[in-house]
């Protein structure tokens, strides 16, 4: 199992979580519930939208993109493409920063924790860590080549 495969698997899990949150936000799924500590308070707060789209939908687009790049990166043709690893690191770094901002809002402003949002933040952090290790493999490989 290569690093990019791990990234793809994590992104796929992220796709389902953000899809759930998006459908919830759009009112397509969801149950009668009492909203403390749950995603409802967070997902109905005014910070649940960003540039006109639900934050969860941004997450969905993000994970779809990362999944696609990581999956392409596992193809024998592309697995030595260093640029894909750079893109994965860059994107997941943005994802981690955005998640950190959202988690800060949950803790400090909304005062409610959405377990699925936290799970997503953990997943994106793992994606970043694995992507960085993946990129470092290239560096190591290259330095070995030079010597």
């Amino acid at each position, binding site marked *: 199992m290569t690093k990019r*495969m791990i990234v793809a698997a994590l992104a796929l899990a992220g796709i389902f979580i953000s899809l759930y949150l998006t459908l919830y936000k759009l009112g397509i799924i969801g149950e009668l519930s009492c909203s403390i500590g749950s995603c409802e308070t967070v997902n109905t707060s005014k910070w649940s939208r960003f540039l006109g789209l639900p934050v969860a939908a941004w997450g969905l687009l993000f994970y779809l993109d990362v999944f696609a790049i990581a999956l392409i990166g596992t193809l024998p043709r592309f697995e030595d493409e260093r640029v894909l690893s750079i893109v994965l690191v860059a994107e997941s770094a943005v994802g981690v920063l955005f998640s950190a901002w959202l988690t800060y809002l949950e803790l400090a402003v909304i005062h409610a924790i959405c377990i699925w949002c936290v799970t997503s933040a953990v997943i994106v952090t793992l994606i970043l860590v694995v992507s960085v290790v993946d990129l470092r*493999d290239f560096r190591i490989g290259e330095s070995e080549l030079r010597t």
Partner: protein
Amino acid sequence: MSPTNEPPRRGSSAPTPPPPARKTTVRNSRSSNRPKAFFWLLGLIALIGVAALGYVATKPKSSSVQSAETADTTNAGPSQGYLIGKVDAPVKIVEFADFECPSCGGWATVTEPDVRTRIINAGLANLTFYDFPLTQHRNTVAASNAAACADEQQKFWPMHDRLFQAQDEWNGEATDAPKAFFKRYASEAGLDVAKWESCFDARKYQKRISANLGEGLRRGVNSTPTFIIGNKLYPGMRSYDELKGIVDSLTKAGGSAAASSTPRAAPR
């Protein structure tokens, strides 16, 4: 054994390892083909994801509650909320809440005092409370009954406040027998306890409670607390500032004639 590992045709007989291909030198941690395990893992994640989403999506939004509690809404008579504030206040706030729901409790104890003093008592708006008992809360229907029986003696709001303040001691996680607590609150609120108890035991207002739930479902409520102000549904806990903003904007717009509720005209 790959063909490259065959002994060289000439030279030393010692099987020297083949020089690594350039590819593997660049990516020393990669295998060039995708193992089956990868696709199994993706398949497993997809399966779990689809199954979980399918389960959530097909789970009936409200029918479980409806069948459990509002099966008799047809002969339940009209829904009837509990009004606080001036009957003819310019803006009408409708609240659907569950006595056992922690966020309703949080709202009632933290935010509502401000809303009462600065919005309702100031005459800017009135508020009508409707029961919206959720099935996952074991004692909430009993609490709605306790409050309805207090209403019979014009003490709905003291009972409402007491129930929410003391949620932790009578909720479904704390006890199987909430009645003892409700009875104590009834006595503390200065109710005729005997009268309250016979009302409570008879579940005299069960149909009204079911009708209130049915009213909420009809209006599209699916979580508690949910507020309806003007024509709009505001699910979730709303801060004082948020409510004040909504009330002010409606007042400017000329009141909320659309917020048609059927509250009983009994302030406080």
